């Protein structure tokens, strides 16, 4: 299949709606299985950390929430760029759908980080580079939600949000490398894809489960929001009315 016909297919809200409908049950089942299984494993079966004790068990929710919050932002910025360059309507819908999910995950990352910080560092919060840049990520998501609501015109809203999403993407490498560039209470990454991870395999395995579970959860909820947005924007088309009211009418 040629690139342009693939692009047209993916850009068609109708095709995307039907295709994503088949994915939903798989994403839902697999993400809940991995999240639930990984959490039970990490909460009850993994031995305690020799320095942090049991507070380290927060890792199984904190790291997935943080990683997916950043991944979601990159996805949103890419969708924004696709919308700006090729005027793809579907990309604008995806972009709008990501903002509330990303904001929720960033909130979760900040909150679980604070709760983990108290017994480990002795403080809920420090204004260091990592935590401050993640707080900025949270505000970027809120800014995109607010910007969407500030416009009456959908196309103008999508254009403005795409620009903000792309400009804000500069924050992502800052978050990622903040623990190495600046002095920080926050530890550097323990998982490495190029070298050896500094986390013990018994602790790493459940983390891999909840991390992949959280990515799948993000994909699942993203499809739910995007599909609702497709129905809303295409409400005057025959195919949407047929889906909602049944074929026979």
């Amino acid at each position, binding site marked *: 299949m040629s690139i342009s016909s693939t692009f047209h297919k993916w850009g068609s809200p109708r095709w995307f709606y039907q295709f994503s409908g088949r994915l939903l049950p798989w994403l839902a089942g697999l993400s809940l299985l991995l999240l639930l299984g990984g959490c039970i494993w990490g909460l*009850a*079966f993994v031995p305690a950390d020799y320095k942090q*004790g049991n*507070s380290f*068990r927060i890792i199984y929710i904190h790291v997935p929430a943080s990683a997916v919050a950043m991944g979601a932002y990159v996805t949103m910025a890419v969708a924004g760029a696709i919308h700006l360059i090729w005027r793809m309507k579907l990309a604008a819908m995806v972009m709008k759908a990501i903002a509330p*999910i990303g904001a929720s995950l960033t909130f979760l990352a900040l909150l679980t980080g604070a709760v983990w910080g108290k*017994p480990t560092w002795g403080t809920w919060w420090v204004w260091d580079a990592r935590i401050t840049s993640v707080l900025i990520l949270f505000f970027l998501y809120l800014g995109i939600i607010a910007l969407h609501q500030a416009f009456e015109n959908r196309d103008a809203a999508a254009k403005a949000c795409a620009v903000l999403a792309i400009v804000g993407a500069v924050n992502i490498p800052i978050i990622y490398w903040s623990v190495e560039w600046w002095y920080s209470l926050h530890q550097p990454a323990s998982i490495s894809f190029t070298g050896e991870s500094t986390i013990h395999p018994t602790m790493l395995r459940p983390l891999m489960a909840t991390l992949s579970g959280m990515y799948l*959860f993000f994909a699942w909820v993203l499809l739910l929001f995007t599909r609702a947005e497709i129905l809303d924007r295409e409400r005057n088309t025959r195919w949407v009315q047929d889906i909602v009211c049944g074929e026979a009418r």
Partner: protein
Amino acid sequence: MYFDTFSELLNMSGHGSYVWFSYGVSVVVLGSLIFVARRRRKQTEQHIRAIVRRKQESSSTIK
């Protein structure tokens, strides 16, 4: 299981409240995302049904 008793699983040698609070909030936040997405879909469906109903009523009065 790593813990000897169920109450030790809850207590986690003093860290229980931090750990369980984190997981509790996570369930609430992730659950409400699903809830909000579903509610948005239902509202949109109601809206579309109203559009279709109006269309059918107006076409039947023309006849």
